[in-house]
């Protein structure tokens, strides 16, 4: 017989898990909302006292300061909103260049660490162990101050084939000047890329159905590179180059790559490549040797084994940490401020903030840019993980 006392045993209300859970959450919510309100209230009173008006109206005002480097047209007469855009584009530029170079160098390092050649493996190990244990800021300073600023003056610049010049003021390269008809070549180039994508899809489908293979790679190369090139020369090469030349004390013409960009790019590349090298090594080592043997047993030759069996499995391990390294690189590019490269943080959160005093709006906008970047990358990562996850049982 059941004991009625037992079945209805009363737990004290503070020992009831549901009650406790709700109570904790209510307390937490009150604390969080309370402290946010407290901070907000303080900010409002402080800003009122300092005479700062809130709102984004300042973005339309004239900035009145120059920026060292800009990918879009910009001078003192443009607005503060424009400075945001200039900084953002500069950040994206150095991140993009850094990501490409770091990926290439990182993959080389990762493969080199696994090389059967003892000397090459050891050199790659030393590179990785040294570079990733030094602060990035130190490396940026080293390249900027100890290397690039000690280069000769413009008159004694290093001269490469009379068209590339390197000196303490920067790296001068010839700038391409498109002439009439070049648009056709570009149009053809993009059309070829689209055509190759469709060709690859068609070839894949045909191989699934009939087993016949189609040389997608080489036909793609032909479409994307050879066809536009032939048309380019048929049209009479509608492009000329603007060569830099020494006039007075400095070079004129061509494209100037400022030393700040070079230093930042070099440091970001070499630092991130050390991490990417480790990721690539772990990825390759993560694919067990049995996979290679199984592929060989099925009669695949060495090339297809690598391309169809090893690399896809290694990429599954490599890509998630690789994207977070890309994100790190983009965030680390904000160290540009330290050497004066005009990136988003340096221009917008630095000069613009100092001139306008609109701290809250500017910090919020800057953080929003980085948050958007990182949240979209992590969204991509989740999508990728879902697509690539092993389907088991």
């Amino acid at each position, binding site marked *: 017989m059941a004991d009625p006392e037992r079945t209805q045993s009363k737990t004290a209300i503070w020992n009831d898990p549901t009650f406790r859970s709700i109570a*904790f959450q209510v307390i937490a919510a009150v604390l969080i909302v309370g402290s946010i309100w407290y901070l907000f209230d*303080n900010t409002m009173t*402080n800003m009122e006292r300092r005479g700062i008006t809130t709102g984004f109206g300042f973005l339309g005002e004239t900035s009145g300061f120059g920026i060292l480097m800009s990918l879009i047209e910009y001078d003192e007469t443009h607005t503060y909103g424009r400075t945001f855009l200039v900084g953002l584009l500069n950040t994206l530029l150095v991140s993009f260049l850094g990501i490409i170079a770091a990926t290439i160098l990182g993959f080389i390092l990762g493969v080199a660490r696994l090389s059967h050649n003892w000397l*090459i493996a050891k050199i790659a190990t030393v590179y990785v162990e040294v570079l990733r244990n030094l*602060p990035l800021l130190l490396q940026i300073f*080293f390249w900027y101050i100890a290397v690039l600023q000690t280069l000769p003056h413009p008159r004694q610049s290093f001269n490469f084939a009379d068209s590339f010049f390197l000196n303490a003021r920067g790296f001068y390269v010839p700038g391409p000047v498109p002439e009439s008809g070049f648009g056709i070549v570009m149009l053809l180039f993009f059309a070829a890329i689209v055509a190759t994508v469709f060709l690859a899809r068609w070839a894949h489908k045909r191989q699934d159905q009939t087993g016949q293979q189609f040389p997608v790679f080489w036909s793609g190369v032909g479409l994307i590179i050879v066809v536009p090139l032939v048309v380019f020369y048929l049209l009479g090469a509608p492009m000329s180059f603007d060569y830099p030349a020494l006039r007075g004390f400095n070079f004129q013409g061509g494209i100037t790559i400022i030393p700040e960009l070079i230093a930042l790019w070099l440091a970001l590349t070499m630092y991130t490549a050390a991490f990417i090298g480790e990721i690539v090594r772990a990825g390759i080592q993560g694919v067990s040797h049995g996979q290679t043997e199984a592929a060989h047993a099925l009669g695949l030759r060495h090339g297809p084994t690598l391309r169809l069996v090893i690399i896809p499995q290694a990429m599954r391990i490599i890509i998630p940490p690789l994207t977070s390294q890309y994100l790190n690189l983009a965030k680390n590019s904000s160290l540009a401020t330290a050497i004066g490269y005009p990136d988003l*943080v340096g221009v917008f959160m630095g000069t613009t903030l100092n001139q306008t005093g609109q*701290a*809250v709006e500017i910090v919020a906008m800057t953080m929003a840019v980085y948050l958007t970047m990182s949240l979209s990358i992590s969204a991509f990562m989740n999508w990728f993980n879902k697509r690539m996850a092993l389907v088991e049982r």
Partner: protein
Amino acid sequence: MKEFKPLPDLPPPVATTGFVGWLRENLFSSPLNSVMTLAVLYLLYTTLVPALDWAFFSAVFTGDDKTACEGITGACWTFVVNRIEIFTYGSYPATETWRLDICFLLLVLSFGPQFFEKFPYKLPLGVFSLTGFPVICYFLIAGGSFGLEHVETEKWGGLALTLMIAYVGIVAALPFGVVLALGRRSDMPVIRTFCIAFIELWRGVPLISVLFMSSVMLPLFLPEGVNFDKLLRALIGITMFQSAYMAEVIRGGLQAIPRGQYEAAQALGLSYWRMMGLIILPQALKLVIPGIVNTFIALFKDTTLVLIIGLLDILATVQAAITDPAWGAVATEGYVFAAACFWIFCFGMSRYSIKLEKKLHTGHKR
């Protein structure tokens, strides 16, 4: 009857054993490999020899000013030797540097023995290095009591400041990270949402903008009259930032613990905190030691960023010293010195983590 006597074994071919064999196997196994080896050797010869010559053979180590370095082709280490006090102590009053010396000594004494397997008092020493050590150092460095002269934080600097920021950051970020990670995996939606938002917010922005924010925005957030020290603001920024990263590392460990462990702990009647403290966290933290130490290393390297908001850590003092016109072009020497300091600590930490990982790798051994 003739007994069968085998001939003695022939020695292996000379080319497969010993030094020659090693060379053939590791450096000249194929024509391509041989070409690469020779190319790399040539490259090493053209870079390493001048580098060694610069750093050691043609370098100057003694002297008092830049006249000692005139007309030499190598490094001017005289500069580093002469400025070593600024690099170590920053602008701390010269008569009081013995206080920092005691702290350095305590640091070595409380962390050094942890590297030795046989040292018997590891636990009490570990407790001391987390409790007594920072308190003693704070009173010693800041002064103002026990008859010691007060030294403002503006005067703290150099390697001492770097180590201080790194120590505080590391010691504070780990518990914050654990709490955030537990919160992120909590069943309570309010707490979970808050932790996710907090972690993603800090992880999504660069540290430099966090430091900017802590120096520009914090005064706005606080009521009139409340004013934090610049160093404290930087410390808060760095701790918040790194604890978010720490939380993600620890979450990885928590996710790797099988459900059975939670259920077994609950079946034994353990409360949430006892279950976490006694069963789950010891296993989870052990799993992610490499990740935790990597976060420590990242934090240590990130301390250099405080120079952007005007604190004088070791990199900032080097930066200031190399622009001093009393010395010529000594930028490389200064940076090499700073790099060596950072490298020793970071590399030491990564080696220690590998050792710890091996030692704690119990249970899965075959």
